[in-house]
């Protein structure tokens, strides 16, 4: 016989103002099965929780309904309280009298009667709740990190240094990511490569890190603690075991005029190339789409040049399989090309911020001297345009790319440092400089370095002879103005790396309309995803700067290590279960499950003869969405915590209103 306790919270005045809590408590006590009903000013407070615990013990309650705020607010609080009194935590339900009632209905009479019904509904549900126990599964204590930029490197090093093995997969021929491309970093003006390169080397030499470059994740199977990952190692056409990185092959290559990816098109590279001098691993790769040998079937100059004989035109992609227990997604970002706006046109002297980084970088194609792509001259006047694609719902992306204000200020400063008599103009909409010492940095650029900041957007850019005419506005003075510039640098929008959406699908991680991977909770679970065991580091989740990325990567490492710290995995028990007796093995559940949780289970008799094959939900994988439950025509599947019976009971309590 059910003995349900109902605890009604006043939430100070928040509920009590519009709901007659005393009347509700009186009426709730009359609901069949309710053994105890009371109201209190703050149920979530210590004394409030104590009331619940005491009532459970004193009255021998079998289920609890806390009628208070949203379960998203305090379900955990009350489940803990219930557990403290020795009752299973899943025998506690919440009726949402605040967000769904008192805050949205001002008619006290209506709100009061609705409140009572909401309680009645939850009473009927909780009567049918079952005690549930957390699910335990074994795991592989080894992590996969996808992406070898600063986020992936940091996460891999943190995990490896804590004594766990890491597999690091990088798509490009070298790790380093965008940070290796940068000139200097704001606001301290550290040389980016100087602080990045040692980290890259550390990764390469770390005994606990297995590094795959020029490789991609092909498939992900399994579930938290037990992922099986298939990695495609693309053919470098170079035997890694023999190559010494001497570079003789790259010098002999007849194709020298290929736009360098590392230099963002500002420099050139051969068809066999080492992306940059400090590349890790320091190995060349043949770009088969541009190599004469692959296009025309003859050349072979690099093979002749190689003293170690390691050029291998026949090499093929290979697939390797790795078992891991956790995955860190750190696929990074891209910046849009500087050709988004037709009113800006496309002109060699209109470049984006990343291209300007390469022009400013000592390792760049101009050895750090800013030069105009059109004619190689040093620009005397540079216009920087912030928000060139960001915060533009009509034609760009609606979000703020977060890093542009700061790197544009840095660009203006570095330009002024290198071209003392040059003039830098910065068009901006708002200066978002919320990091440590950031605002002071921007102020320094404006006040001390003499960059002319103009508050407004640029409407049009066109070429006039040797120069570009930039028509913008300064809204602070309310003037439209025209600037003649030698170079225009657009702070184009930060977007996720192409293909990261496909990877997110493989990992069953949701992503937003722009392709940024979605975290489990924007405030409280910012590095977790809704797929257990998959974590997000860096800009694959949202645009952010280096310190934030490093911090988030560290957070990922901590989450991975925490996961690995237990002997076995523990999971929320809201999972589907199959009634094997009635399962007709159509396996529609398998077809619909986004997580591949349903498996085929063979039922055998004692002699070992196969009787039937039925569906079995792997509890370690099941995320508890209940899609299989609805799909199953024989209703042989049910969802713990949201069972058919519970839901029917809730509906049954609805009428009459």
């Amino acid at each position, binding site marked *: 016989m059910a003995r349900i306790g109902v605890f009604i919270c006043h939430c100070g005045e928040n509920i009590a103002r519009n709901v007659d809590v005393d009347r509700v408590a009186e009426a709730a006590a009359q609901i069949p099965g309710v053994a105890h009903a009371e109201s209190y000013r703050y149920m979530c407070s210590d004394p409030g929780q104590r009331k619940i615990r005491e009532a459970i013990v004193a009255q021998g309650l079998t289920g609890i309904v806390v009628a208070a705020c949203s379960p998203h607010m305090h379900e955990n609080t009350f489940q803990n309280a219930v557990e403290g009194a020795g009752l299973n935590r899943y025998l506690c339900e919440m009726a949402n009298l605040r967000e769904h009632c008192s805050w949205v209905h001002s008619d006290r009479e209506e709100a009061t009667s609705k409140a009572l019904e909401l309680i009645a509904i939850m009473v009927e549900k909780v009567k049918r709740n079952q005690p549930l126990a957390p699910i335990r599964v074994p795991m592989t204590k080894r992590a996969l990190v996808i992406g070898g930029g600063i986020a992936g490197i940091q996460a891999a090093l943190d995990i490896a240094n804590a004594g766990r093995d890491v597999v690091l997969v990088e798509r490009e021929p070298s790790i380093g990511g965008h940070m290796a491309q940068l000139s200097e970093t704001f606001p301290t003006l550290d040389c980016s490569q100087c602080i990045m390169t040692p980290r890259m080397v550390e990764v390469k030499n770390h005994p606990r890190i297995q590094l795959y470059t020029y490789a991609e994740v092909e498939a992900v199977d399994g579930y938290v603690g037990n992922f099986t990952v298939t990695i495609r190692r693309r053919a470098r056409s170079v035997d890694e075991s023999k190559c010494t990185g001497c570079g003789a092959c790259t010098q002999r290559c007849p194709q020298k005029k290929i736009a360098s990816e590392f230099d963002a098109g500002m420099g050139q590279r051969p068809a066999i190339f080492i992306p940059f001098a400090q590349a890790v691993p320091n190995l060349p790769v043949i770009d088969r789409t541009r190599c004469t040998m692959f296009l025309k079937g003859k050349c072979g100059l690099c093979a002749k040049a190689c003293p170690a004989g390691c050029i291998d035109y026949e090499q093929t992609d290979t697939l390797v399989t790795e078992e891991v227990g956790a995955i860190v997604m750190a696929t990074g970002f891209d910046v849009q090309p500087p050709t988004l706006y*037709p*009113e800006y*046109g496309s002109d060699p002297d209109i470049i984006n911020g990343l291209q300007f980084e390469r022009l400013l970088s000592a390792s760049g194609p101009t050895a750090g001297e800013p030069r105009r792509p059109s004619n190689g001259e040093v620009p005397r006047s540079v216009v920087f345009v912030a928000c060139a694609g960001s915060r533009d719902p009509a034609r760009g992306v609606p979000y703020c790319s977060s890093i542009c204000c700061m790197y544009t200020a840095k660009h203006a400063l570095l330009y002024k440092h290198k071209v003392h008599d040059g003039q830098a103009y910065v068009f901006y909409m708002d200066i978002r400089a919320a990091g440590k010492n950031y605002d002071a940095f921007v102020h320094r650029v404006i006040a001390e370095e003499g960059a002319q900041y103009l508050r407004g957007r640029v409407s049009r850019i*066109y*070429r*006039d002879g040797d120069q570009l*005419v930039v028509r913008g506005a300064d809204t602070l003075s309310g003037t439209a103005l025209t600037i003649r510039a030698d170079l225009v640098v657009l702070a184009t929008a930060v977007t996720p790396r192409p293909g990261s959406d496909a990877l997110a699908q493989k990992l069953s991680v949701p992503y937003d309309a722009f392709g940024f991977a979605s975290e489990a909770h924007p405030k409280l679970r910012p590095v977790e995803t809704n797929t257990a065991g998959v974590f997000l580091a860096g800009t694959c989740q949202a645009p952010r700067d280096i310190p934030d990325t490093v911090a988030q990567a560290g957070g990922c490492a901590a989450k991975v290590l925490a996961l690995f710290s237990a002997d076995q995995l523990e999971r929320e028990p809201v999972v589907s279960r199959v009634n094997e007796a009635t399962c007709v093995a159509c396996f529609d559940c398998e077809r619909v499950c986004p997580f591949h949780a349903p498996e085929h289970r063979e039922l055998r008799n004692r002699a070992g003869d196969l009787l039937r094959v039925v569906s079995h939900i792997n509890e370690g994988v099941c995320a508890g969405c209940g899609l299989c439950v609805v799909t199953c025509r024989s209703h042989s599947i049910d969802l713990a915590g949201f069972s058919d019976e519970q839901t029917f009971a809730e509906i049954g309590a609805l009428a009459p209103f």
Partner: protein
Amino acid sequence: MSVAFYPGCSLHGTGNDYAQSAHAVCQRLGLDLTELEGWTCCGSTPAHNTSALLSVALSAQNLRLASDQQRDSLVVACAACFNRLRSARHEMAHDEVLRGRVEHVLEAPAPLDVRVDHLLELLLDTYGLDALAARVRRPLTGLKVACYYGCLLVRPPEVMAFDDAEHPTSMDRVLAACGAETVDWPGKTECCGANLSLSRSDIVVSLVDRLLDQAKRAGADVVAVACPLCQANLDVRQTDVTAQTGHRYDLPAVYFTQLVGLALGAGADELGLDKSFVDSRPTLAGWLS
């Protein structure tokens, strides 16, 4: 397809050389350009300045006439009228409330069965560039033309859906088919000041000054236009530009139809080349047989 020509008030007045040359071109190409019977003013800027409903209703009235006269399309030469008529159609199609109000005013269903096309679209899409090139008698070889589209042909892009709003090429392609060399210049879609011509001619003068300067520096012999208001500003105001700024351009502003007509073999008088303030005939002498 049955079309009716909507001239608009200007083509019966200051822009009659545009009308004249458009008719000459279409006659030579065998395109029917019968005027819409009983057409009325589209309302132009003053109407939409005053009431959005009035503006759409005045334009819709002409679409209604075309519909009643069983026309599939209304062909417009004046960029301003074109803009009003196409906008009216667009707005009625996309805003149900407005459509209802217009229907109330017109006391008739909204005439959405009639398309609105610009004369350039007629030449490009209906007639075709190859067919046009085949009819050219006197290729305009060597003539450098700055095509000026102005505002109302191309903007707003979502409504007009005419070419690329920032870098349109329709007129360039038509004139290139006639053998002319069109120049790339930054003024293509910059504003000439439009009807500020009457109330604030000083503004128009400075805008026209910049446009002429850009066209001249791009090496243009003539500026080609598709709007009587643009033509008037670029042509008539040149003396004011000189008076106000001291800059002297002597750059003829002609209708693109005048150039097409020329290539098709029409004479100066037939095309109304005598009617502009900056005489284009000396520049075009080589093609005037």
